[in-house]
């Protein structure tokens, strides 16, 4: 469903990605792992067309989306829950969720809102509250809920466990598994290697802007090269 070939991207003169190949198939959870600064977030920003790739191409559900506008990517159903959540702090929980359906999922907005509140009852208790005052866990729920409002075909989660307690992280991974069980394809970008590999079918390890390792998640979990790549010793 997602095919990335030879993707190069960066910021002005600073090239970050040097030719990434990556695939996500229908119904998969694919993990993208890597140390800080490996290029994971740059990859996500290029996939969501927030930055423009300098070379290579991206196809989503068979259609070329390289160089498309960020709105076209959302309309196609490639939805990202970004690192740091990037929810709207000056808006209420309800307004944040409603804006998730700004471009996509508008016809089913009421039904999707009910579903998100069913998954995250805590958000239902805080519908009128400004989100700037919520805890990190609640903000992460809201960011995922906002993404769900856009009826994603593929959901990119960028560091969703960042800043969450171990218990909340466990709940989060359980939730990711549940969403995937309902048929949602997920690209999980994480630093939490053990839990990500436990839940993913396949994984890519990115190092210095290239794919250093890839393959079956269970096999990678036992691969000594993984630790080396992670510590930058490879």
């Amino acid at each position, binding site marked *: 469903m997602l095919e990335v070939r030879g993707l190069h991207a960066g910021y002005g003169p600073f090239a970050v990605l040097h030719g990434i190949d990556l695939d996500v198939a229908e119904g998969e959870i694919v993990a993208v792992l890597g140390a800080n600064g490996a290029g994971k977030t740059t990859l996500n920003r290029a996939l*969501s067309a*927030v930055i423009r790739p300098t070379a290579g191409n991206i196809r989503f559900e068979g259609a070329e989306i390289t160089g498309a*506008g*960020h*709105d076209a*990517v*959302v*309309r196609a159903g490639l*939805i*990202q829950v*970004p690192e740091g*959540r*990037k*929810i*709207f*702090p*000056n*808006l209420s929980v309800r*307004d*944040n969720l*409603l*804006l*998730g359906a*700004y*471009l*996509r999922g508008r016809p089913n907005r009421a039904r999707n809102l009910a579903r998100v509140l069913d998954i995250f009852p805590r958000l239902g208790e805080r519908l009128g509250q*400004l989100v700037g005052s919520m805890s990190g866990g609640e903000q992460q729920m809201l960011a995922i809920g*906002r993404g769900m409002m*856009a009826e994603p075909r593929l959901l990119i989660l960028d560091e969703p466990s960042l800043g969450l307690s171990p218990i909340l992280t466990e709940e989060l991974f359980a939730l990711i598994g549940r969403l995937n069980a309902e048929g949602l394809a997920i690209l999980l970008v994480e630093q939490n290697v053990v839990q990500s590999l436990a839940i993913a079918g396949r994984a890519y390890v990115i190092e210095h802007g290239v794919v250093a390792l890839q393959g079956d998640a269970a096999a990678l979990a036992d691969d000594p090269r993984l630790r080396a790549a992670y510590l930058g010793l490879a």
Partner: protein
Amino acid sequence: MVEIYAAALINGLLIGGVYALVALGLTLIYGVLHIVNFAHGSLLMVGMFAAWLMAEKLGVHPYAALPVVALGMFALGWLLYRLVIGRVSRGEDRAILLATLGVAVVLDNLFLTLFGGDTRQIESDLTFAVIELGPLLLSVPKVIAFAVSLLLAGALWGFMALTDTGRAIRAVAKEPEGARLMGIRPERIFALAYGIGIGCLGAAACLLLPSFFVSPHVGSVFVLVAFTIVVLGGMGSFPGAVVGGLLIGVTESMGGLWLGESLGPIGISLVFIAVLLFRPTGLFGAAR
């Protein structure tokens, strides 16, 4: 004696309604989008000239011209943002400040060249019409401006709170990247919101005209007061713009009564400082 105070109070409220109207557009542009819009006064002047021309050349009463002038000013604002302010600024506050200041200088001098520095007025049946309220005389155009500004404030508040475009405007101002990831295009929303703010000025211009004069410098009468009201009322708050406008109107009027015309305006600064001392976010500002 009581009548003098009552008259000053009522007059202040009515003038405050007009101030509120001018501040409404600014609270959207400055309070929500954080664009320091130095062109606000100049664009009000453009709106007033448009209304004046329609009255003088086409015989259309400013109240009847209001929808046309408001729409025209919306279009002008949208174009200004797309062609000048958005392009020049590239998101940098300093550049936005210079761009809007540049627009103001160009507009002021363009109109000075076209129309000269004279002040102009329209004469209509309403200009000197008054309502007698016991011993008080209320100017009809000011009462109308007051009432319509309250209505417009309510409508704008509803638009911002209840529509997707309103939500998107608020969202984009704080978190543009998060908005992009939801498919919202920030540059479009900014142009739209700037246009709406300037459209408010078009409405204000039409409501002002029957009781006020027009000249290429008329904007400067309002622009500082409008910035004061927006900060006093709470950045981005529409009820704040109305209450702030009324408060400033009354303060000015009472200050004039007690301290005389030349020393009177000091009251505005005193009230401004006093409010910000006790509520740094303004009367209706959200706590941060």
